[in-house]
């Protein structure tokens, strides 16, 4: 059975001008021990998807659809059962580790009390285990770390402490919401390595939210690309890089500058990422898509599953070769003038019209 299954999850948030959709039907499944990356730009709904799992969505939000944890719908749990799930089965790591730790407690108090409460261990046993956990997340000076207050530690150290606390109860599912976005790159590399190692060691499944496609590719088994509150493509990192099936995925991969080669001009996606509530029928990406056909603006594409991957694009099959081709930016003039020839200007403003 899958650890986690989302079935047509929709989320609407009431606002001054009526309800606003943030998720427009997200479906995904996560096998035990599997890592799934949720990748998207701002407004894509990647964090919101994660928040429906532990029911931490914003107050007032209306959620429909099913969120199954080990087959049981979390949406129907009462407060006590939800607390049990949060304590034992699922843990969450957020972007800001400082918010996760009580500023007036030392690291030792935070870890030891958590262990005593959750597992009923004795203080001595809990202390031993806390020290062991810290050592495993790569903290060299365990004594100093245990005696420190959160404000005395760097962001990278704190995130390690949070990871140590998260894996302490050996949960079956880890929810990670941009856990390294606030960290420096060198620290990000280390924290990700630790997170990845601990996840594998404990056999946890992971839902990993990030805006960084490459980062997700490095630590996830599969990647779901989100746009405007729905999944547009699911595939393995290798499949995504070799042959993306959705135009958005392709352009997202191309528009990120490369560390190894300079493009004379970066291929761009015209316009700005739109939010789910701005979609007006048809394909959500059509307005920004250089391959959009008239029917794309009319017909809403469904997420089509095929050979272990899924794509939400009406023209996915006809475009397969083109999307898998060379990066247009590096071999200039390969694609039509749509993406490279025209100046950036006007396009952003057009797309927002």
């Amino acid at each position, binding site marked *: 059975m899958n650890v986690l299954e989302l079935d047509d999850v929709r989320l609407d948030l009431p606002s001054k001008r009526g309800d606003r959709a943030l998720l427009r039907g997200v479906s995904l499944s996560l096998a035990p021990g599997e890592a799934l990356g949720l990748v998207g730009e701002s407004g894509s709904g990647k964090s919101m998807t994660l928040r429906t799992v532990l029911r931490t969505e914003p107050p007032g939000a209306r959620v429909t659809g099913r969120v199954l944890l080990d087959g049981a719908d979390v949406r129907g749990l009462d407060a006590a059962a939800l607390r049990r799930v949060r304590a034992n089965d699922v843990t969450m790591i957020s972007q800001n580790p400082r918010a996760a730790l009580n500023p007036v407690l030392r690291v030792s108090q935070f870890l030891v009390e958590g262990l005593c409460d959750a597992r009923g261990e004795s203080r001595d046993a809990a202390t031993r285990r806390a020290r062991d956990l810290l050592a495993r997340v790569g903290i060299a000076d365990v004594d100093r770390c245990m005696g420190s207050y959160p404000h005395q530690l760097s962001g990278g150290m704190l995130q390690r402490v949070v990871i140590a606390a998260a894996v302490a109860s050996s949960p079956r599912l880890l929810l990670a919401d941009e856990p390294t976005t606030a960290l420096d790159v060198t620290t990000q590399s280390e924290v990700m390595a630790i997170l990845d190692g601990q996840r594998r060691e404990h056999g946890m499944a992971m839902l990993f939210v990030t805006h960084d496609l490459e980062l997700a590719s490095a630590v996830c088994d599969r990647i779901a690309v989100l746009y405007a509150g729905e999944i547009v493509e699911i595939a393995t990192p290798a499949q995504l890089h070799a042959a993306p099936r959705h135009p958005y995925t392709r352009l997202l991969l191309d528009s990120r500058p490369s560390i190894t080669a300079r493009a004379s001009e970066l291929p761009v996606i015209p316009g700005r990422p739109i939010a789910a509530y701005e979609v007006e029928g048809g394909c959500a990406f059509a307005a920004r898509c250089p391959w959009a056909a008239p029917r794309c603006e009319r017909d809403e594409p469904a997420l089509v599953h095929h050979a272990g991957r899924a794509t939400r694009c009406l023209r996915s099959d006809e475009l397969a070769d083109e999307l898998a081709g060379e990066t247009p930016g590096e071999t200039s003039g390969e694609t039509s003038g749509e993406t490279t020839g025209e100046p950036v200007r006007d396009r952003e403003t057009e797309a927002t*019209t």
Partner: protein
Amino acid sequence: MSAETLARPAARRRGGDLAERLGPLGIAAAVVIALITLAALCAPLITSHDPAVGSVIERYQSPGAEHLLGTDQSGRDLLARLLYGARTSLLGAAVVVLLAGGGATLLALVAAWFGRHVDAFLGRVLDLLFAFPNLLLAILAVAVFRTGLAQVTIALAIAYVPYSARVLRSVALRERRLAYVQAAELQGLSGAVVSLRHILPNIAPQILTGAAINFGYAMIDLAALSFLGLGVQPPTADWGLMVSQGKDSLLQGHPQQSMYAGVCIVVAVAAFSVIGERLGGRKAGGRA
């Protein structure tokens, strides 16, 4: 084609937004304040009685056709005294709030702009002022100068500065650190221009919120000073003074004067507090 090209074509909101922020209770409070102000302004139209003149023969009259709310111990018309009393009470509080708000804003902008030593020095001065209770400071001023409305309002205004200044300093400091202020600074614009053109409009909501809350407190403090005989001097009509002058009548079984004035003070102060809290509270929890 103008609005459609914008990412968030939010309608320019002013009035609608304010009403929403105030909520039903806040709007009711605003209506109450408007009515009180209107009544104070139109006092001569509402009553033909002189609030300062009465005849002893007419003392302690019950409400009737001639005197709608009756008369006080000197036979003066209570309605007229309440209406004209609103003028002194509102005006006094308004002056306190205006002076205190202006002073606090100036201090906050100066502290935020120069930072460091100037900020630290102003902080100490404010701490010093904080050490004196408002009323004590006002009483001190009266002892040094003279009794009278002008003296106590100025003294109270000074006493109120630290409360507003402390809050405003922190919001001004927050704005000061934002990139748009630094962008203006690096154009070589003077501190005064940047502070007034850029920082001031962005801390205006907090200034107004503070003013609304302080207005209520100022009314109470002024009433208390009048009650003690230090502020407004008889025969001028003033709510605080009315409560005070009514206390003898109270013992003689004529509670009207103190009661009416007391109710007026409570209602007005409550209305200002509600507005202040609505403006401030929603601001903190609302959008950036």
